């Protein structure tokens, strides 16, 4: 490897060159910051959904929706050949969510019925990961996660392998994830909700493959692909559909299998002056006939001595699932039916702002995100807009320290 292009040997230039060489060891990988034996991050997060507008609500009044308060703790460390990470999430969830939609008596437009502000639960999640191997070598990664709610339990495992090309301009990775979820819906099979399932389970198997390449002194790109298969009870146990011919509701019922393919093309480009542009196009499709596109743009910049600021913009669009309708005139022959707004055709726009500022060994952070889903933002014309599309804002404060 010829060293003729090495920069002139002032101390600062030598340091920068060494840092660049260190980055090169990990091929396309970037270094998140100075190496630390252990680091800890804690964040308080608030998520708040906007109300359903009076014009879209079956009650004729504006109705408030879901809110989540979360606390997240992450510990990470690294040794000579090993990196580990552990995360704990505590969440408190409360509010109302879309239940089913009925046709307006005047014009047949769908109107949203909410579940009532009766949902109140706690979620606890724990995840750990361990990566073994140096940059330039094969690196193995193990992951495990567990999440517990009153009515839902989920356990997952993952195994991954990453390696670099001989010239370390490419990094390739393969991973497989498996998850087993157990549902015990509240009041399942009760006198009040006889059609609600008492207990069910589902399994998810996913395979990830990705390649990341150094394109130039300023640019890195990654192509990622995920194939996934979900099997079991994939319906929402709480949601219902309105069947007009019966003037009654029926349970949400989806196929028991879902095969999906997700693709993403990501690029990061250093603009100079401590600024970098991150771009992403993502596409996903599945055998429920759902198709989606996402475009994301994120500008990250240094602010002051060691502070950072980032601004993100995201556009998303999806088509509807084959068995979705805001409500049904008769029960479909297939027996598959859902009025879940998340399976409806819609688009969404989100903006994000993040700030980070170091204070000695500590790191303070904060950020906000605003998100609005709307039929008008969709890639293609939407004939009937789902009344329960989500608008939300989220905000966080974080505190971190390195040792």
């Amino acid at each position: 490897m010829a060293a003729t292009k090495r920069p002139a040997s002032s101390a600062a230039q030598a340091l920068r060159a060494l840092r660049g060489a260190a980055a090169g060891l990990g091929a396309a990988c970037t270094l998140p910051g100075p190496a630390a034996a252990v680091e800890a991050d804690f964040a308080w997060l608030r998520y708040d959904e906007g109300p359903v507008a009076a014009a879209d609500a079956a009650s004729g009044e504006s109705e408030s929706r879901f809110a989540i308060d979360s606390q997240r703790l992450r510990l990470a460390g690294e040794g000579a050949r090993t990196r580990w990470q552990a995360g704990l999430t505590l969440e408190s969830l409360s509010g109302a969510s879309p239940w089913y939609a009925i046709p307006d008596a005047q014009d047949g437009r769908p109107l949203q019925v909410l579940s009532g502000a009766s949902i109140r639960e706690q979620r606890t999640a724990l995840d750990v990961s361990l990566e073994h191997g140096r940059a330039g070598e094969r690196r193995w990664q193990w992951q495990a996660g567990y999440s517990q709610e009153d009515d839902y339990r989920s356990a997952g495992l993952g195994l991954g392998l990453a390696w670099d090309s001989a010239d370390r301009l490419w990094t390739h990775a393969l991973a497989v994830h498996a998850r087993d979820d157990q549902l015990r819906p509240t009041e399942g099979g009760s006198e009040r909700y006889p059609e609600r399932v008492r207990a069910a389970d589902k399994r998810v198997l996913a395979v990830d493959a990705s390649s990341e390449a150094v394109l130039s002194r300023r640019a890195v790109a990654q192509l990622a692909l995920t194939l996934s298969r979900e099997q079991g009870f994939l319906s929402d146990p709480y949601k219902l559909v309105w069947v007009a011919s019966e003037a009654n509701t029926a349970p949400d019922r989806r196929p028991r299998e879902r095969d999906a393919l997700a693709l993403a093309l990501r690029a990061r480009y250093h603009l100079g002056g401590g600024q970098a542009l991150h771009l992403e196009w993502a596409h996903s499709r599945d055998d429920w006939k759902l198709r989606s596109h996402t475009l994301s743009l994120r500008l990250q910049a240094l602010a002051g001595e060691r502070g950072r600021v980032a601004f993100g913009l995201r556009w998303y669009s999806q088509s509807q699932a084959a068995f979705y309708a805001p409500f049904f005139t008769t029960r479909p022959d297939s027996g598959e039916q859902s009025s879940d707004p998340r399976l409806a055709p819609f688009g969404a726009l989100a903006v994000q702002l993040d700030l980070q500022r170091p204070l000695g060994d500590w790191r303070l952070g904060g950020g906000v995100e605003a998100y609005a889903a709307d039929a008008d933002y969709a890639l293609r014309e939407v004939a009937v807009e789902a009344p329960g599309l989500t608008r939300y804002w989220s905000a966080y404060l974080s505190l971190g320290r390195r040792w």
Partner: protein
Amino acid sequence: MSKSRNRLLRAATAALLGLVVSGCAHVQPWERERLAAPEMAPEGPALIADYRRHIAQSKEAARIAGGSSGSGCGCN
């Protein structure tokens, strides 16, 4: 309206693809200083990036390539 969005999506995807296929110059390790800069780190704080992915996945039907959003119901 939807035609212009289609065009915009195609143009953005083509530009991104163009950037990728035009690349792959041989960059020496000591020339990768900018690639190692903190502003080039793939996402913001890991805690927050994971949280936002989890929310998106519980509000949208899409699956995300190359990253699990963690476990949990997301039923609301």
